[in-house]
């Protein structure tokens, strides 16, 4: 009986949920830890990001001058962003979109 006022109120109010994916979710708060991006022009391939990554989501290939990032292994902790000495990494406030296959991203770093 004590729930009755709440139930009556809910009967006439809009749903509390959103119809994702048909409707967009609300904007994340500023500072939300989302996807990691690399600025290849700043990167010096030191490999610190790969060393500190707790999920082994980052790989550096010195021979091919490549930076490999697996967004599906990444736990979005942001440790690499805080560690990166030349500050080449940045973190977006949007989460990785769902995908049909788990694929890593490879970015070539210019000399």
């Amino acid at each position, binding site marked *: *009986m*004590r*729930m009755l*006022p*709440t*139930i009556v109120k809910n009967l006439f109010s809009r749903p*509390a949920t959103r119809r994702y994916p048909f409707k967009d979710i609300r904007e*994340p*708060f500023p*500072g*939300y*830890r989302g996807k990691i991006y690399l600025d290849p022009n700043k990167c010096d391939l030191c490999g610190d990001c790969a060393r*500190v990554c*707790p*999920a082994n989501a980052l790989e550096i290939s010195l021979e091919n001058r490549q930076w490999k990032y697996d967004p599906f292994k990444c*736990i*979005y*902790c*942001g*440790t690499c962003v*805080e560690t990166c000495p030349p500050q080449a990494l940045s973190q977006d406030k949007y989460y990785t979109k769902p995908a049909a296959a788990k694929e890593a991203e490879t970015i070539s770093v210019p000399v």
Partner: protein
Amino acid sequence: MARTVIPFGPQHPVLPEPIHLKLELEDEKVVGVMPIIGYVYRGIEKAAELNTFRQNTNLVDRICGICSFIHCQTYCQGVEALMGVEVPPRTRFLRTFWAELSRTHSHLLWLGLLADALGFESVFMQIWRAREIVQDLSEMTTGHRVIQASNVVGGVRRNIDKEMAQEVHKRIVALKEMIDNSAAPALLHDATIKRRAVGKGVLSKEQAELLGAVGPTARGSGVAIDVRQTGYAAYKEVGFEPIVETAGDSYARTLVRVKELYRSLAMMQEALALMPEGEILVRVDGYPQGETVSRCEQPRGEVFYYLRGNGTDHLERLKIRTPTFANIPALLAILPGCEMADVPVITLSIDPCVGCSER
């Protein structure tokens, strides 16, 4: 009379996590119970030896999805004690704030599950709607909704500035109002809930002490045991006192959690108000050496960490004892004698977190 053995779990509608209880029944009455655990073992203690001690903060975060912050806090406090690091005062208050946020999250989640187990769907929905505010607070202050990843050895990674503190305060007031208006009256005064919980699964004070029960399970039986009394983090400053009920039944354990929920909200506001200015992170050099224990109060009770370092980047041993593991003997003591239909609610009343206890 012939005895029947009925399996309860590991897959059961009221249990989100897999614990298997073999119930021995005489007619409808439970006379014996045998627990079987080990369905979600993940080998985290071994993994913690393979990771570096800094990477472990993210690993112990993932032991539990609900009290992840407190796991990490216990770990960091242990490593800091090993390395002789003193964290800045502001960090202690921020850790208290997030630990209480986790407790609010956990207790709301549990109260919702209890309502669900009782078949009280509308209360369940209302409580989880209130929980959404807690997750928003977590997202706003740490950047993550569930696993906050804001503790590191030597401090915390995020700060709460004045502007954000005001916003947090507003949301806490809204959350309190929401609980006041919908969930709390139903949980505290509803006749159906009382009929299903009062006098069910009684754990006496002597039993609770003997079986080493912790957390709300022990406090519901009149044992005033709470690690926060030791005053780690900023609990001395925010004025903590344990909440104790004496009846020892499922309802007493519910009451402890409802009261703790309000206490946590008050402590969060207190922590934000009393927080001194200053650094939030200190630089930590060197490697952990020696052994130590670290204890914290989780929503379900005391969590215990044993750490041994050998002066390298890796820990030699990390042993974790979680509150659910300590509460399972108490569960086995209170189940015999109850009706089969009461088993789900009584099992839920110790708030089992199986993922935690199996690590």
